[in-house]
């Protein structure tokens, strides 16, 4: 296992470097830069700015300088904000987004699989239909509509729930709900589908016929086997939840990391684009590694270390 982890770590560094390189040259190849804007700014002022941020140097040189700083853990100065460095922005934005993401994940994890399992046990009966309706809403009403609706119909009528902003737990309730609906619905649907699959397997039938109670069978066998697809999607899902959602953070006025992913690109804030991308990539890489490890725990037959047979 430890050899496997070592191998994965080395692979991950190569992966990360690839991502850095591709993103770096990709972002310099799209039109625009951080300093050009509409208006009468003379070329001289523009050139001062390029010089100050080192953008007047050849691209290859900029790339080398960036990599050097990156090795020191320095993401550089934001080209848009003269107040914070990219490290500052990630350091303050990430806990906010991660908090909200975890809250949403918790809601989704508590209700999603349970709803799906219930639907599977009562296939084509009322619980199944209710679960289906919740799932349909979660899937087909995107967060920007859900957020707006929640503000209009919940926040405006419930005095202790604020409309937007950040600071206390009550600020997190609506955005977390809006954020959790999609993963909740997704997990409910996945759980239902895999449960149905598993419930018809021979070993479940055997267990039931041996007289083991239904709930014990479900807990011992069905859930454990049905959870694998959920684990599979959790990797990308959690990484997306942790870094925050642009839409939700915009609608609810949340000072998180999610909005930087879009803002940085709109502003061509090169250092922030790189910083957020690398940060996201690290989270994704770690989570996908955890998913693979989780596979082995859930189903020891799965082999990741040895060459395939």
């Amino acid at each position, binding site marked *: 296992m430890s050899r496997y982890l070592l191998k994965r770590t080395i692979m991950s560094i190569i992966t990360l470097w690839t991502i850095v390189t591709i993103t770096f040259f990709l972002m310099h190849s799209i039109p625009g830069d951080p300093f050009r804007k509409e208006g009468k700014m003379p070329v001289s*002022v523009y050139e*001062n700015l390029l010089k100050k941020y080192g953008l007047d140097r050849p691209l290859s040189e900029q790339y080398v300088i960036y990599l050097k700083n990156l090795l020191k853990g320095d993401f550089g100065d934001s080209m848009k904000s003269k107040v914070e460095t990219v490290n500052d922005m990630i350091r303050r934005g990430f806990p906010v987004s991660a908090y909200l993401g975890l809250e949403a994940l918790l809601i989704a994890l508590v209700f999603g699989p349970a709803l799906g399992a219930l639907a599977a046990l009562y296939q084509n009966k009322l619980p199944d239909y209710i679960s289906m309706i919740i799932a349909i809403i979660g899937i087909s009403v995107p967060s920007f509509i859900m957020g707006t609706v929640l503000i*209009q119909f919940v926040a405006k009528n419930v005095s202790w729930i604020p409309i937007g902003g950040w600071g206390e737990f009550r600020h997190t309730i609506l955005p977390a709900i809006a954020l959790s609906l999609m993963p909740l619905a997704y997990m409910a649907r996945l759980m239902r589908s895999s449960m149905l699959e598993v419930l018809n397997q021979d070993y479940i039938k055997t267990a039931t016929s041996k007289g083991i109670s239904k709930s014990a069978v479900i807990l011992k066998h069905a859930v454990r086997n049905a959870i694998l697809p959920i684990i599979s999607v959790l990797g990308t899902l959690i990484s997306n939840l942790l870094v925050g959602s642009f839409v939700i953070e915009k*609608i*609810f006025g949340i*000072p998180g990391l999610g909005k930087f992913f879009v803002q940085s690109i709109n502003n061509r804030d090169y250092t922030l684009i790189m910083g957020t991308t690398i940060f996201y990539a690290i989270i994704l890489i770690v989570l996908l590694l955890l998913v693979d490890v989780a596979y082995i725990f859930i189903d020891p037959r799965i082999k990741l270390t040895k060459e395939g047979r």
Partner: protein
Amino acid sequence: MKMNRKFLVLASLFIVAAILVTGCVPKGGDTPKNDAPAASDTPTSGTDTPAAGAAKILRTNNGSEPGSLDPALAQGTHESWVLDHTFEGLMKLDENGMVVEGMAKEYKVSDDFLTYTFTLRDDIKWSNGDPVTAHDFEFAWKRALDPDLAADYAFQLYYIKGGEAYNTEEGSLDGVAVKALDDKTLEVTLEAPTGYFLELTAFYTYYPVNKAVVESNPDWAKNAATHISNGPFTLTEWEHDASLKIRKNPNYYDAANVPLDGVDFTIIDDVNTTWQGYEGGEYDFLVDVPQAVTAKLQEEGNPELVIGGMVGTYYYNLNPAIKPLNNVKVRKGLSMTLDRKTIVEKIAQGGEIAAEGVVPFGIFDENGNEYRDGVGQLIEYNVEEGKKLFAEGLEEEGMTPEDFKKIVILYNTLESHKKIAQAAQEMWRVNLGIEVQLENVDFQVKLDREKDGDYHISRGGWIGDYMDPMTFIDLWWSDSSFNDVNYNNPKYDELVYTAKGTADQKIRFEAMRKAEKMLMEDMPVVPVYFYTQPYVQKPYVTGVYKPLVNYPKLTYADINR
């Protein structure tokens, strides 16, 4: 073993849940609170009404996180709105839009209109108690011109002799002709007579900074604790991307006449959310109201809505390198068949004014009268005449209305631009029988394509920097960096030079009037409307005024509950 693992999972879930609910919510900012010099804080959110006698804190929203609260480095309204309340220049704009003395007690202008000598007030202090001196001004202006600081708005100081040379590293720091003769006297010499220089000193790039503070701490403007200012308010709290608080500055010379104890800004950029907050009683005052809401409030005649004035023009660039847009008759035909009244009344719906030229209303001429009245209506809505001209123009170019299927209106992605572009498209379809296409792109992509001339018709807009027609007129001289239609008319350039080179107001304005008429004869751009800035305020808020080139001024606002 297996159950253990499940137990572990459940237990950790519960722990996470417990931390989430009971634990602290991570803060958006990392700025320590500074002891508020005057008023104490009131709760910032919720619908609670402060009891009578409590601190008067106006609650509002600043659309996005300031990129800097250093006057030299600021570059947009989300920065200047805070700066305009925390700093003050030599001159300031009063509620009538007049330029009056601010930090300066009086000023003298030399006979050649090149040298200005300002004398500062006696009773002016920084928020930390230091006196505001002429040296602070000299330091601030030279600092903003420093090429190493690379301030975006350094060019606003190019009017000062030697300023441009220093900023472009062709001249030296000592060559910048601004000098503190003593603590109270500032002398500045200009490159050329500038009729609106006094007004420029009210612009934020001209604000002073505390020399001692800035020299000892280069990061002074990065958080509230070290932020020192000289205006009616001072910054006391800044949680990045979340909120800003400013409190009354007891050291301000006119503090006795500032009714508010402070202003709390949230930083939320979604206008629908902030509007809901306003309706829900979380704000007392709000700029940037959703378009649909403005329309509705206006229809209802709701007194909480104020249509603030603004000097800005919305227009379409017509690329003269593209046939048949090179033909002046075609351009005029397009302009004449655009129903601007319908656009402002039914589509933009923010109290905008149908354009009558490129220079908006609100600017005074040499006699103190409305500049627009001296030029008159230069734009006509006349479908029949427009059709005729358009047909003639097309024929001259040997083209047919069919060819317009390949003509595209380019705009940057924004709901309001999309609506107006669709209306223009439909009006031209109905009136001229042409089917132009629309294309929306990322803002930077649009800039790029305009610079490259890679467009047919593109949306443009300009908000004036100062209250003089020149801020619009010089957009289309051949040297302008914002002349995306590459308008190149030597006669026009000559008029611009004439106006820029003289201090004689009569000659200056005459030249600008002529220039605008010439421009509208050639019609390289099709003006659509003059901008406004709608805002809402609760009935108990009074005393807010709206300088045309600034966001609403809250300095003399009051809350009467």
